[in-house]
């Protein structure tokens, strides 16, 4: 099971240029709203037509501008789950799923398939309910059942949990994760929630302004985000402009501190962006350094990456405390969350913290 996508589409000033290729994976497509995630899914499903390019799933060419192939959505066997689930409002749950089973011509076989699918999703008791009588989670299960009964070769999920209340989200997510695992073919999940993505998917593709900026195994992308956009989406909340001192040391301009970084992260970035001359001021590449604040720990003594910081202010939240820290006078603050108990015990104006090398990432911004 593989999917190959290499497409271009112009929409006014916006240019979508997507190119990826993955095998038997659950792939997350992340990005800010308007970056082209949903448009990419629509192009794969055949609802939108790319200007140029190729889409191949399992060796079947769905679209090719060179070969003049453009299969209709009906023939693509691509299941697309919409954000609002798009259940047909004039049909009951049973009729909705039956509409998905249109490939089965024999009436009894069709109804048996629908019933079996409803049993699998535990929605048989909702057969005669109309969509507006169902909760968000129930609607999602019926929409998924409707797609799976049509036996797709590839499953596309467009922000499937964003319409749900928080308490339903996690349960529905666990159910969906199981469906995805049982499905066993290529799945693309659009989301901007890194926790959700981390729990469900294998690979992550981050899009920005119509292009895929970062693509890789989820752990690689998470530990080394490489761009500001990817860093922000993967939970690297603190970012400062940076100057590279050498392969191991980076000066964070906003915070006024020198951070040690894992050497391979630095050299990876510099190599991958074809910038041989590290620290060249004339280059049009701008560097940034990011800190994953969850990795920051209180430190006892002076060591690499440990800094004496002033506690500018703090705010007590229900379950933890947010500290606003400054390394030097006039520098930009870093926020750090600690447990309430710890803060009560160690309340002070100056604090020594340690930022481990794993919690530091070098980012590039090419302009």
């Amino acid at each position, binding site marked *: 099971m593989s999917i190959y996508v290499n497409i271009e589409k112009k929409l006014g000033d916006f240019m979508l240029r997507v190119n990826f290729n993955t095998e038997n994976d659950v792939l997350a497509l992340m990005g800010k709203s308007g970056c082209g995630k949903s448009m990419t899914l*629509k192009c794969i*499903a*055949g*609802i939108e037509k790319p200007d140029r390019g190729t889409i191949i799933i399992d060796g079947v060419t769905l679209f090719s501008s060179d070969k003049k192939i453009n299969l*209709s*959505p*009906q*023939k*693509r*066997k*691509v*299941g*697309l789950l*919409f954000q*609002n689930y*798009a259940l*047909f*409002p*004039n049909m009951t749950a049973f009729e909705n799923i039956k*509409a*998905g089973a*249109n*490939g089965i011509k024999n009436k009894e076989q069709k109804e048996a398939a629908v019933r079996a699918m409803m049993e699998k999703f535990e929605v048989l008791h909702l057969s005669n309910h109309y*969509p*507006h*009588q*169902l909760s968000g989670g129930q*609607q999602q299960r019926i929409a998924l059942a*409707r*797609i799976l009964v*049509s036996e797709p070769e590839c499953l596309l999920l467009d922000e499937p949990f964003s319409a749900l209340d928080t308490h339903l989200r996690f349960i529905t997510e666990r159910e969906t994760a199981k469906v995805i695992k049982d499905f066993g073919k290529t799945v693309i999940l659009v989301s901007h929630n890194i926790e959700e993505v981390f729990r469900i998917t294998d690979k992550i593709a981050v899009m920005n302004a119509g292009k895929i900026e970062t693509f890789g195994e989820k752990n690689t992308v998470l530990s080394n985000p490489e761009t500001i956009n990817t860093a922000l989406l993967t939970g690297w909340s603190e970012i400062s402009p940076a100057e590279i001192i050498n392969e191991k040391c980076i000066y964070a301009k906003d915070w006024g501190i020198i951070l040690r970084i894992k050497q391979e992260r630095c050299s990876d970035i510099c190599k991958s962006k074809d910038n041989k001359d590290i620290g060249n001021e004339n280059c049009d590449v701008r560097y940034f350094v990011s800190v994953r604040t969850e990795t920051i720990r209180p430190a006892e003594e002076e060591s690499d990456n440990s800094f004496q910081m002033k506690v500018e202010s703090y705010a007590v939240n229900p379950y933890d405390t947010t500290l606003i820290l400054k390394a030097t006078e006039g520098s930009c603050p870093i926020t750090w969350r600690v447990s309430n108990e710890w803060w009560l015990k160690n309340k002070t104006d100056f604090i020594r913290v340690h930022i481990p090398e794993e919690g530091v990432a070098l980012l590039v911004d090419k302009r």
Partner: protein
Amino acid sequence: MDLFPLWNSIRISAISTAAVFFLGIFCAYYISKAPKYFKGIIDVVLTLPLVLPPTVVGYLLLRVLGPKRPVGAMFLSLFDIKLTMTWWSAVFATMVVTFPLMYRTARGAFELFDNNLAYSARTLGLSDTYIFWKIRLPYCKQGIIAGTVLTFARALGEYGATSMIAGYTPGRTATISTTVYNLWRTNNDNLAFKWVVINIAISCVVLMAVNMVEKKERQAVSLKEGA
């Protein structure tokens, strides 16, 4: 009392409503999908009969369908059929006058349609014909019913264009509205009043039906939004 005008009015309205129903939905569906600039122009042309005085519509129809005019003359020579001054001539008049009502309400309903429903149906392998009849039309049902009832009501009250193209011949082309005018003109006030009462009664029933449909529509919308 000769009830011919009642029967004649109802058959003219029923036939023209049936024709306008399909024509209006057909135009509404294709125009709601058309590119913007094209939509603007065609929209003005199709809505024009709504704001033109019915006598202007009648005049234009006579220019086309009259026995000495191109289309009228052609039908006369080929089939020996006169297109004016028969009871069914009035169907042309009511069709033109009521078309915008059907077209606009149906178009409004189609534009409210959630296109994701059609998209997801297509990815599920459902044909475009199935989508139109089983998903799109039922979704827009309330708007289309309201449009149809309005069309019927307006057709029933058509006077200007009808009197020009079908005239007033008692027992042949007379409708309720032309009968009322002629009874009043000939000082038959009693009978005119009876027809007025009949007309008001029918119109009230039709408008109550419109209100009921619209109420149901509002409920349906609030249910959809609540979901």
